[in-house]
């Protein structure tokens, strides 16, 4: 469960919030809105990359408002995927597991399972710059899920893909829904997740409102 209580964030000339919402476990939540409306900012606040001026962030009944990003049960898929170019696909997915001190056996097993889930078994030895946009998206998803986050944040996950790759990418996101992963998906294109979303919200000038 993700609960935001009166989250307020102030940037130079932009104010986000106050935002309050409660998202049940296993739901696929979509946040629509134009560029500059504060969608990505909201995700960064939940991820711990920005600290709100006021309000509370509750995940699985624990207060994470002032907890650093690295200690939050949150995975994030960035718009440009933010894959590490100095590592192979395997090393990218293994990164959070290595950081948490898992042994090599567990790392190999978990990376293998994720690679199978996202059909990237043949890519594991490749360098990041040798991947297509769709492959990068799947690798980034596998990496974001490797440390088994309670909630997965997707920041415009389809915007970097060509039109013909989007259908496949939406199918990949469908895997998350099927697995019961709690997802918050922000996008400027409402059609892109119309089949996936269990609940939708609209963000406009820093204010969030539910859509029926």
């Amino acid at each position, binding site marked *: 469960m993700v609960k935001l209580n009166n989250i307020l964030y102030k940037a130079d000339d932009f104010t986000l919030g106050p935002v309050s919402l409660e998202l049940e476990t296993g739901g696929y939540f979509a946040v629509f809105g134009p560029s500059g409306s504060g969608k990505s900012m909201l995700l*960064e606040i939940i*991820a*711990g*990359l920005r600290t709100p001026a006021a309000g509370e962030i509750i995940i699985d009944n624990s207060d994470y408002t002032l907890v*650093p*990003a*690295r*200690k*939050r049960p*949150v*995975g*994030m898929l*960035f718009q*440009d995927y*933010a*894959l*590490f*170019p*100095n590592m192979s696909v395997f090393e990218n997915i293994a*990164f*959070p597991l290595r*950081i*948490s001190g898992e042994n090599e056996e567990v790392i190999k097993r978990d990376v293998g399972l994720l690679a199978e889930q996202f059909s990237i078994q043949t890519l594991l030895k490749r360098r990041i710059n040798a991947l297509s946009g769709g492959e990068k998206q799947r690798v980034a998803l596998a*990496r*974001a899920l*490797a*440390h088994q986050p309670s909630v997965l944040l997707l920041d415009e996950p389809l915007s970097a893909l060509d039109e013909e790759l989007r259908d496949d990418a939406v199918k990949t996101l469908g895997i998350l829904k099927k697995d019961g992963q709690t997802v918050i998906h922000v996008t400027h294109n409402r059609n892109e997740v119309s089949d996936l979303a269990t609940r939708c919200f609209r963000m406009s000038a820093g204010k969030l409102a539910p859509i029926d």
Partner: protein
Amino acid sequence: MQTRDNFNITHSIFLLLGGIALLFIFAPLAGMFVSVNAPHLFEAATDKVVGSSIVRTLLISAAATIISALFAIPLAYILARKKFPFKGVVEAIVDLPIVIPHSAAGIAILGLISRDSALGAAASAVGLNLVGSPFAIGLAMSFVSIPFLINSARDGFAAVPVRLEQAAETLGASKFQTFTKISLPLAGRSVVSGLLLMFARGMSEFGAIVIVAYHPMTTPVLIFDRFNSFGLAYARPVAVIFVAVTLILFIGLRIYQKRKW
């Protein structure tokens, strides 16, 4: 509209002007090599004083570079990533050693390590004289060359997308893990370039070193000493050997750097 002729004329002029710049660097060095007297060169090559001065110069410069890196790389990262009051002043201070005369740098360092200073007095109390020591040489080398490392590393860190560091944090990495596993490897090429530049600049230093430590002699000081005492014919072979050694060393290091990064 741009024509093929315009394009060629511009590039031909650039090629001519660039060629003159290249010749300006290459000609004096080539001239030094071709005009060196063979018996004098052989004599210098077998002279233990020359050999030990070259080893001393390389070792002290390498040590100065490695020790300075422990302080310079964190500063470079802070300068690349953080905004803070008077950042411009800090950046100007970093560049100071490049713009001040190196003899003045030598005088400043002498003030720091002479027996009148706190550092010099503390060393003197345990029986050490810092003036005229390898420590003084290393200090002078570091002072004049550290801006090259800081600036190169800072540019390297600035080129690493902040997004990658944020991604590492959301995956559980601490700031230090993010630095060692993401930022430093991705800025590696610039950091290594900075290290090589600092090493090179340090070992070629003369002005500051000659003030803080005439003895033991580094090779640039030895070249000056031979020129002053015996003239050009005896200074030139030492210069030729030193330039040849540094050239071979740097070509080797650059090849290694390009293969690794």
